[in-house]
């Protein structure tokens, strides 16, 4: 493998308080040199990074790659390539596949498929309960042994407080977070969107913010009881932010994520029965969006995750109440965050990199998250100012279900490097200004 010399980019690495223009040298899959002007070895491939940001590789701790079971909608390979095109060097795959990823063999399958794809890394997340049925605990130990990095019954809430308690206790042995999809199922039953004025006007059954918040506070209290690490998936309400703050103030081991769509869109997007604005948790109100943006800035919300959820186009082409939840997110996440939080919201690029790269690595105990010399060379190079129009037909994901279709967004991955190998490059120059895209 030839050494790579990234020339003249802005090095943004909060893990070492770095925010300066300089070179980055990668050799043997590791960071070999950083800062200043580096004269690389003669055989090094030089990538011109003038005007681009060079940062630790982004890590998405929450996506649905649909394999095994729905390979028509996404595979681990297409998902991993879409991730790389979005600037992610690693993603964590949720276990709500068919069959459910609830044992070591299923975890091993995902690891092998990811190796074959040779794009972004894919870390499996195992199920909390066998079959995600909310009853018997799955074999955390064996799944971790096979490569699982966390457990979750995502897609479904853990309805039983006793099961959640046991999972938090048992997970301590393996030092993995227990990720919960916070939704009180009797309150949310049949709901298709946020409960409020829009749902009342459209005649759609609503899901109140309280359905999420009741489970948020339950999980925080159970984390206090057990000393386990609870990670709250896709937070969507102002009330949840306040409860997480309450928990963190008391030293409880609670961490949380938010999705780009909950930072940028509101329930108003559903008007016209727009099924690409249907997700769970649902898009909420402008007040919630505001509170979530603040929480990303002040660190109450630890990280940004996509909840990438591809669906076949005709599954979304139906009556709103019957359409499936979820949108694709891997290839728009960076741009949505830059457009809505950096350009408009005053988030620094340093904090963006922390929430999308450093914080996920730290909290999930994953490689990467730093450009320190000797660290693994998972690196994202992105253009912070490229304006582009979202055209789902150009996505590398098989999914086309995006609420951002046709919107002009700012910020785009130029080059994604995993263990020193370029797995994605937006143009021949590596500067992200051309439309030709390398596949993996």
């Amino acid at each position, binding site marked *: 493998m030839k050494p790579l010399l990234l020339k003249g980019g802005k090095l943004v690495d909060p893990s070492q308080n770095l925010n300066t223009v300089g070179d980055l040298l990668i050799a043997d899959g590791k960071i070999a040199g950083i800062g200043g002007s580096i004269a690389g070895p003669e055989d090094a491939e030089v990538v011109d990074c003038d005007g681009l940001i060079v940062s630790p590789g982004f890590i998405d701790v929450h996506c649905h790659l649909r394999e095994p079971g729905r390979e028509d909608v996404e595979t681990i390979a297409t998902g991993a390539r879409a991730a790389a095109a979005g600037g992610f060097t690693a993603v964590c795959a949720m276990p709500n596949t068919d069959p459910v990823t609830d044992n070591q063999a299923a975890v091993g399958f995902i690891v092998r498929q990811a190796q074959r794809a040779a794009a972004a890394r894919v870390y499996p997340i195992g199920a909390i309960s066998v079959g995600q049925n909310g009853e018997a605990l799955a074999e955390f130990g064996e799944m971790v042994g096979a490569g699982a990095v966390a457990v979750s019954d995502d897609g479904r809430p853990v309805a039983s407080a006793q099961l959640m308690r046991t999972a938090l206790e048992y997970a301590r042995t393996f030092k993995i977070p227990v990720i919960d999809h916070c939704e009180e199922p009797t309150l949310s039953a049949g709901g298709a969107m946020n409960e409020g004025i829009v749902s*009342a006007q459209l*005649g759609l059954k*609503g899901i109140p913010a309280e359905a999420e918040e009741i489970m948020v506070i339950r999980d925080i209290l159970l984390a206090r009881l057990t000393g386990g690490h609870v990670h709250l998936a896709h937070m969507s309400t102002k009330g949840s932010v306040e409860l997480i703050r309450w928990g963190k103030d008391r030293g409880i081991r609670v961490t949380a994520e938010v999705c780009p769509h909950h930072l940028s869109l509101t329930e108003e997007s559903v008007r016209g*029965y727009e099924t690409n604005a249907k997700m769970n948790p649902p898009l909420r109100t402008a007040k919630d969006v505001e509170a979530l943006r603040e929480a990303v800035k002040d660190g109450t919300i630890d990280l940004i995750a996509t909840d990438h959820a591809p669906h076949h186009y005709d599954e979304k082409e139906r009556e709103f109440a019957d359409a499936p939840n979820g949108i694709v997110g891997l290839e728009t996440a960076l741009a949505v965050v830059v457009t809505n939080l950096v350009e408009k919201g005053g988030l620094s690029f340093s904090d963006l990199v922390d929430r999308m790269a450093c914080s996920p690595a730290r909290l999930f105990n994953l490689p990467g998250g730093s450009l320190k010399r000797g660290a693994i060379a998972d690196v994202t190079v992105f253009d912070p100012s490229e304006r582009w129009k979202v055209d789902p037909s150009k996505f590398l994901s098989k999914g086309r279900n995006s609420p951002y279709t046709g919107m002009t967004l700012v910020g785009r991955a130029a080059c994604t490097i995993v263990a020193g190998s370029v797995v994605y490059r937006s143009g021949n120059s590596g500067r992200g200004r051309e439309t030709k895209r390398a596949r993996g």
Partner: protein
Amino acid sequence: MTRTLGKDLLDLESLTGDQIRLILDTAEPFKEISERAIKKVPALRGSTIVNLFFENSTRTRISFEFAEKRLSADTVNVSTSGSSVSKGETLVDTARNLEAMRIDMVVIRHSASGAAHFLANRIQSNVINAGDGTHEHPTQGLLDILTLRDRFGDLKGRRICICGDILHSRVARSNIWGLTKLGAEVAVCGPRSLLPNAIDQFGVRIFDRVEEAIEWAEALNVLRLQFERMTAGYIPSAREYNRVFGITSERLERAPRDILILHPGPMNRGVEIDSDVADGPHSVILDQVTNGVAIRMAVLYLLAGGKPELAEAAKGGSSRGREERE
């Protein structure tokens, strides 16, 4: 001023007050046709209309069918049983097939909110919403408003209370939008478990007690109580509902004025409304049914491109309204 409708009639939310008045005014001359011995005019001769009913309905479907036939349209009725819908065909495929058959209009009733919008966005034919889930039922709202206007004249400042299950009622939503746009004062009354949580943002007055509503209102639109609401646990029993929220003659006798009684039907006598009220002197429930045909004729006529001022001429036997479009 908008004196025309768009391609479709999907809801009253998106109509202006002028558009609503246009439909009501156009309905006036059509009322008379139903009083004739030969109840037929050629206004929609040559038009093909599909009545697409994915949900059971007797009176709305019959009302549309009469309206279509009295305007001389060719109609086909499709209901869930016996169609490809029961074989699992999707709504989008149904829409494409209808489009391929070059029909002029579709009247759709569907259990999913937004189904009429969905169809309208995908076909060029005019689409009329005959009730979509718990969203809207615009022709019902219009016929209720026409019935109120027959008695009150201008509705500005008139006090109308909608009673019952607002949460699940498409009739309530259409009435709230339509009446509000015409300047009426609108209130709702029902158990809080059957009111949307965001009802305070609808710009309506809320009464927790039906006695207070009766004290305030000049007209009550009494909604049908769906029995599945009991099994779903929204209220304990029909008996208690009648005792607490029922429109009874005892309650009405204490009203400070005569109150007009409307009901979109079909009625649960002895539940939301007592028989002596439904059949009493202030009930306009059958006028609503009569007006329903005239409103639907007006909507069909206007969407087909008929000019409102020609409605008079149309009923005299000319088919100019249709020709104007072509």
